[in-house]
């Protein structure tokens, strides 16, 4: 899976399931401050990652994710590890 495919899927679920406006989706958007994604929402992001990308996230792996580009990078890396 290419980075572009990862970004496309992540952006799609943020828009469809988290009801985030498309113009708010930027690589440097901060989850908490810009996208108003709180810790409970990260539980649902874990669920969606498992469904969309086929790997299980360990809770502690998500702690460093602050902005959208962190999530793209993390998923890209994990997809490679699990493929």
């Amino acid at each position, binding site marked *: 899976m290419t980075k572009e495919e990862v970004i496309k899927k992540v952006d799609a679920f943020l828009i469809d399931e988290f009801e985030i406006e498309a113009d708010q989706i930027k690589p440097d958007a901060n989850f908490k401050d810009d996208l108003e994604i709180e810790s*409970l*929402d990260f539980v649902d992001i874990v669920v969606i990652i*498992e469904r969309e990308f086929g790997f299980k*996230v360990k809770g502690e792996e998500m702690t460093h994710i602050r902005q959208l580009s962190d999530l793209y990078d993390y998923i890209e890396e994990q997809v490679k590890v699990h493929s």
Partner: protein
Amino acid sequence: MKRVVITGMGVYSTIGKNIEEVNDSLYNGVSGIGIDAKRIDDGFRSPLTGIIERPILKGVLPRRMRIGLPEQGEYAYVATMEALEMAQLDEEFRLKNEVGILYGNDSSAVPVINAIDIVRAKKDTTLVGSGSIFQSMNSSITMNLSVILKLTGVNFTISGACASSSHAIGMAMILIQQGLQDIIICGGGQEVNAESMGSFDGLSAFSTNTADPTKASRPFDRDRDGLVPSGGAATVVVESYESAIKRGAPILAELTGYGFSSNGEHISVPNIKGPSKSLEKALKYAGICAQDIDYVNAHATSTIVGDTNEAQALYNIFGSKTPINSTKSMTGHEMWMCGASEIIYSILMMQNSYIAPTINFENPDEHSAKLNISGNRIEKNIDTFLSNSFGFGGTNSTLIVKKVK
């Protein structure tokens, strides 16, 4: 003690999705009962159930507020918004004044089942998602609505089986009479799905009269063969008289009596003395006698033993003149919701001067023959009514409501 009134009501049920639709159905004797094909596939004894559509709340509520709501929570949200609008309790008022919530609910089966299915399949609890716990608990409706509505008053759920929401209204009445709270959002919610009804179906308590589903729920009728499960949600705004007057809110009715008791016997088979005690306590609380009641909304679920014992209790107290009906003939048994919904149905009859028909009441049995029950609508002025709700474990609740002139 403070006087307690009802200033708003809202309903989402199998016989209508708002007050106006429900009033039309009650007036015309419309049934909300049908067949659920899933129950046939799942090997249920009875596929009969109240038929209801889930409201679509996407775009109405933000995601975080929406995903914690189970099915009955969605019904409760819609019913409560209707009640709040009627009571003129907007968000600005709620932010500046203490408003509480006491709601009846006694199950939330589907979220529990779904969560366990995921854990068993995936061996990872995180994959259950963040909304499940808030959907799964019995207090789901009160915990969600108190957040959505920004409430700062009393906040808990009453679980008293099929008397849950009647007790919730009774408890609210006491808190307000005591001056501990001025406004409490009260009601009951009931999920309508096969998963929550399988174990009840297994007790052979449900009607299997599938030839004509609208004829299956037949309280007090000689040919009844069991209850029909149903649900939805109903909300009433309970408020002190002074608060209602001060706000200029519409006063729909006054709550004057609450009676309660426990049978102290069998877990599922009701008796006569327990309900009688609840009825007598409610009359005493209201400071009136049986002859002052113009109409009784019976619990009457369409089970032989339940109806028969209630008929005897009602006859012992009211004799044969007081008009009695069972709105469950139309709605089916709304269980955790029925205490609150039947207060609303009865207020609608009081406001519009009629007693809804006990549809399917065609032939009485030896006990119901002694009571004043009609299969037809009766045009009648109602100043005071009494509503019964009884539940598993022998819990009984009775409320008395009167017109404010």
